[in-house]
């Protein structure tokens, strides 16, 4: 492997950026759709989105040759540069997701903050009241007390409720935009034939959504102490969402490889990087097997009800291992793409 200009910081950024974008999309969808039922997912995703994208953007800035000059990105707009478009997208994303996250902060955290900072106590207490979610009882995956499910935060004033939902509404296209941008950043470079296909953007977007669903499976139980019915519902819906995204991802990888095999020499040679070259192991075992095929098979069996008879400890183990595998695969996908792309040149 020769020297690569873009290294691990860019890989981690692309991973975290996609993850944060996916969290926002899923959180917004959970907030807006079937109000109240998926409040755990909405909260976990809202809290994670700005943190993950913030961390990623920090790495992006730190990777610059002149990090202190990063503000140069924001005194201009270069419509032909995907990086310029992406930088502005990230600013918008950070603002929207931060507002959304504040309006989704758990009341218990806010009360603890109120105790810690008595001067701001009243504000934290007010926010804690606003953010008190509606109690939605869920049994067998069906919410009861149907009259409550139209309003997920009954203690928020109307304006705050509208602001929260507006942030979620903008968050979906913005999150999809950031997810696509992480791929376009690579795909827009004709000099690197491995990247230069229209499919890399979709691949990164669906991988972002799939890894976000996986991360939310892990994090939702930590920030939402619902009853067993509710956490079961959250896990089941994330699992179904992930099945869609993971298969979309697979359906893009397959034509990606076929296209490369049938294409001009540059594309063929660059695909040999993953088909039978330095990145084959990471790609086939890490990305395809560990990140897609094994978790997709387990999720398929579980979604079909095939895992019901398993002992509880094994189920809990699977609910931890499968998301972790998806996350590892998602990271390796970025790693393989960033490095294999830089190993190839236009012939």
């Amino acid at each position, binding site marked *: 492997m020769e020297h690569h200009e873009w290294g691990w910081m860019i890989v981690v950024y692309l991973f975290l950026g996609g993850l944060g974008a996916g969290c926002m999309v899923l959180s917004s969808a959970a907030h807006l759709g079937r109000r109240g039922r998926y409040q755990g997912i909405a909260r976990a995703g809202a809290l994670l989105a700005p943190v993950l994208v913030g961390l990623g953007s920090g790495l992006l800035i730190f990777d610059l040759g002149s990090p202190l000059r990063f503000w140069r990105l924001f005194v201009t707009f270069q419509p*032909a540069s995907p990086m310029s478009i992406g*930088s502005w997208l990230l600013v918008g994303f950070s603002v929207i997701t931060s507002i959304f996250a504040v309006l989704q902060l758990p009341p218990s955290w806010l009360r603890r903050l109120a105790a810690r900072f008595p001067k701001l106590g009243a504000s934290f207490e007010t926010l804690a009241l606003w953010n008190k979610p509606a109690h939605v009882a869920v049994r067998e995956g069906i919410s009861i007390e149907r009259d409550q499910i139209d309003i997920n935060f009954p203690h928020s004033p109307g304006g705050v409720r509208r602001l929260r939902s507006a942030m979620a509404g903008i968050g979906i296209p913005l999150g999809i935009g950031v997810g696509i941008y992480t791929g376009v950043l690579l795909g827009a470079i004709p000099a690197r034939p491995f990247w230069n296909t229209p499919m890399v953007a979709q691949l990164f977007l669906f991988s972002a959504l799939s890894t976000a669903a996986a991360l939310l499976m892990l994090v939702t139980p930590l920030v939402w102490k619902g009853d067993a019915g509710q956490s079961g519902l959250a896990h089941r819906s994330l699992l179904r969402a992930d099945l869609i995204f993971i298969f979309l991802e697979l359906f893009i990888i397959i034509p990606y490889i076929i296209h490369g095999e049938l294409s001009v020499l540059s594309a063929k040679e660059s695909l040999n990087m993953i088909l039978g070259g330095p990145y084959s192991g990471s790609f086939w075992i890490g990305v395809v097997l560990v990140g897609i095929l094994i978790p997709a098979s387990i999720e398929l069996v579980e979604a079909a009800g095939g895992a019901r008879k398993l002992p509880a400890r094994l189920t809990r183990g699977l609910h931890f291992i499968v998301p972790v595998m998806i996350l590892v695969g998602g990271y390796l996908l970025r790693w393989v793409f960033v490095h294999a792309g830089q190993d190839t040149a236009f012939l």
Partner: protein
Amino acid sequence: MSRYAMVLDRARCVDCKACMVACTAENDVEIGYHRNWVRAAVKGTFPELSMQIEPGQCMHCDDPPCVRSCPTGASYINAAGGIVGVDEKKCIGCRYCMLACPYDARFFDEAAGIVDKCTFCDHRLALGQEPACVETCPTKVRVFGDLDDPGSEVSRLMRTRNTEKKLAHAGTAPNLNYIID
């Protein structure tokens, strides 16, 4: 208006690398980096072998992907002459332009934290001098000039000799022309 271009005769190059030394000295290029190059490839084994020597530098494309990809506007095409440059005050060192360049013509100056490249010695052009690599070449491989001036040596060579552009199918419309006949 001028349209600066170069015609290079590979057959004249003897791989002495004087152009690289002259460039480094003239432009105070950081040790370990080069704005121009001589790439030599040997084929076969003795006594049946041949050697292909090819000097080069930034192609100063008419449609440069480095300029398009730059997020801060630091990479630009100089309106007078079409020279592709980097504004060192605006460059943030993201290296996106380096990935976008199909010719690998740019390098990252780690100490300065910015990307650097050939300028066609625009500071010398302003004084009516030729680029350092052109002036110093002992075998006169490089001919530099203005395509808008029909009387220039470059224009004459482009009229009379068969030339090719490197990676013309990349669509960047480079302005370095290599004699092939």
